[in-house]
């Protein structure tokens, strides 16, 4: 009987805790959306911020976020996917592979503020790129590299071995096999990883603060400094003078992250239902 009772107690407790946690977490999202959606309208999305963001919209932070993200993903993609192919197809272990693995896993753990410090001293100062979209994009590119490597490698490894064997049997070389037999089946999984890393770029704050700067005017080129949405939201929230704009910005961020997740999940589900 004791076992039955303790099972009852444990089950009730775990149900209560889990539901409470999920309610609290969802409440955060609902709270932000409830207060933020009222602020969002066409002018909010298409006007440049005025008076330190207290008036106007968030067009330039939107542009800042998009350009930093696109740059980071475009720069990180070849390195990330290339590394994944190397780890999944070209090596069976050995010292070099172990070192590469150690380095990618270590890169994954470095805090974004340390990436910010590095970007500041390396891209902004040493390479003379200044506080700019380019410096921010390069810094965030290194940050998202481990995510792309890990998800792409998983996608490549999940391609059934029979694909490779059949391709080799037909006389294809390794490169032909990878290009024609492996890549087409792995491409959805790889895309899923890329999209998740886009989410990380959009959410990043500390690293872009130290590398892309906080300028609110429209960037003219990738050498201009620009504030991203996450940083704009942070600065508004800390100043506390334009809470409505802060809510609006964070709601835009959450909606963006939501769509990124939906697209990533759709890719994975199609991937699974195709029989992999």
């Amino acid at each position, binding site marked *: 009987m004791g*076992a039955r009772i*303790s*099972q009852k107690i*444990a*089950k009730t407790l*775990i*149900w209560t*805790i*889990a539901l409470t*946690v*999920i309610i609290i*977490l*969802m409440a*955060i999202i609902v709270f932000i959306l409830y207060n933020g959606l009222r602020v969002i309208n066409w002018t909010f999305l298409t006007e440049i911020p005025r008076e330190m963001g207290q008036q106007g919209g968030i067009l330039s932070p939107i542009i800042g976020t998009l350009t930093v993200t696109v740059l980071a993903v475009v720069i990180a993609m070849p*390195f990330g996917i*290339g*590394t994944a192919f*190397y*780890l999944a197809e*070209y090596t069976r272990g050995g010292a*070099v592979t172990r070192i*590469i693995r*150690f*380095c990618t*896993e*270590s*890169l994954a*753990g*470095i*805090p*974004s*503020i*340390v*990436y910010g*410090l*590095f970007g500041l*001293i*390396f891209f902004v100062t040493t390479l003379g790129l200044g506080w700019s979209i380019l410096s921010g994009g390069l810094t965030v590119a*290194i940050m998202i*590299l481990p995510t792309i490597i890990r998800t792409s490698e998983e996608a490549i490894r999940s391609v059934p071995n029979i694909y490779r064997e059949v391709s080799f049997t037909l006389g294809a*070389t*390794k490169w032909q096999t*990878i290009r024609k037999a492996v890549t087409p089946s792995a491409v959805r999984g790889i895309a899923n990883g890329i999209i998740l890393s886009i*989410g*990380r770029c*959009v*959410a990043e*704050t*500390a690293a872009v603060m130290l590398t892309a700067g906080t300028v609110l005017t429209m960037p003219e080129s990738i050498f201009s400094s620009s504030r991203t949405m*996450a940083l704009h*939201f*942070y600065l508004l*929230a*800390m100043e506390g003078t334009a809470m409505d704009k802060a809510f609006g910005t*964070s709601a835009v*961020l959450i909606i963006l*992250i939501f769509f*990124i*997740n939906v697209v990533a*999940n759709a890719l994975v589900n199609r991937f699974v239902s195709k029989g992999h």
Partner: protein
Amino acid sequence: MKNFKEKLSGRVFLTLALFSILALAVITIFILVQGAPVIGKHGFAFIAGTSWSPGNGEFGILPMIIGSVAVTLGAAVIGVPIGICCAVFMAEFAPSLMRTIFRPAIQLLAGIPSVVYGFWGLLFVVPFISNHLGGLGLSILAGSVILSLMMLPTIISISEVSIIVLPSTYKDGALALGMTHWQTIRSVQLPAAKSGIVAAVILGLGRAVGETMAVIMVLGNATAIPSSVLEPVRTLTTNIGIEMGYAEGEHRQALFATGIILFVIIMILNISAQYITRNKSKSLKIK
């Protein structure tokens, strides 16, 4: 031509893969070169010094080390048990409909910018602490609560997976021996999934130690050593985040040196997580 392409593709992939090594090396070297002079000059006093006063050339980061440890431990005390409970719930108790709703929701929560959590903390947690427990509200406790919320998605999803991937014979065997579902979870499934759960916790802790912007908003950022969890505190990350914007000369170097200490702490956490996950497959077989 065929052979050439073969060789070239292999080389290209290897070269791309070597970039990670280069990146980690360059990051380490640049942070070290910037910060090492300050550590060299102040020596042990940099880590053990209790006064941070850049204007007077005093750079002691002990209060920040204590701050980081206190906030992270607090987050672990709140977040780890709750996270494991939620993982057990998701893996064993939740009806499948709930699971299909909660899984993407947890994934969404993991992707939300950390500043959103900080903002929520500033508007709800800080006033709540100030009204009900006293003090300013901007405190270790507020930081711990926010970080524990941020850690939860990581801990829940990885722990859940490490429970789900256990061979079904573990559970079936235990149930066949007459154990209740809860006894099976407690004495068979959780111990077997231990290494995965520990790795999840370490990853979550790493995220907590490294978090900057969200905790700046709720910690109060005082540079004194706190005497209770209701007092404001500054962590290693927030020290950099707050002051880097205007620091110059030795002050700036001292912030890079703060980055070195942070880097070392994170590397220790990373290496232990890597070590634990690597031994996972072995320990499963022995059991």
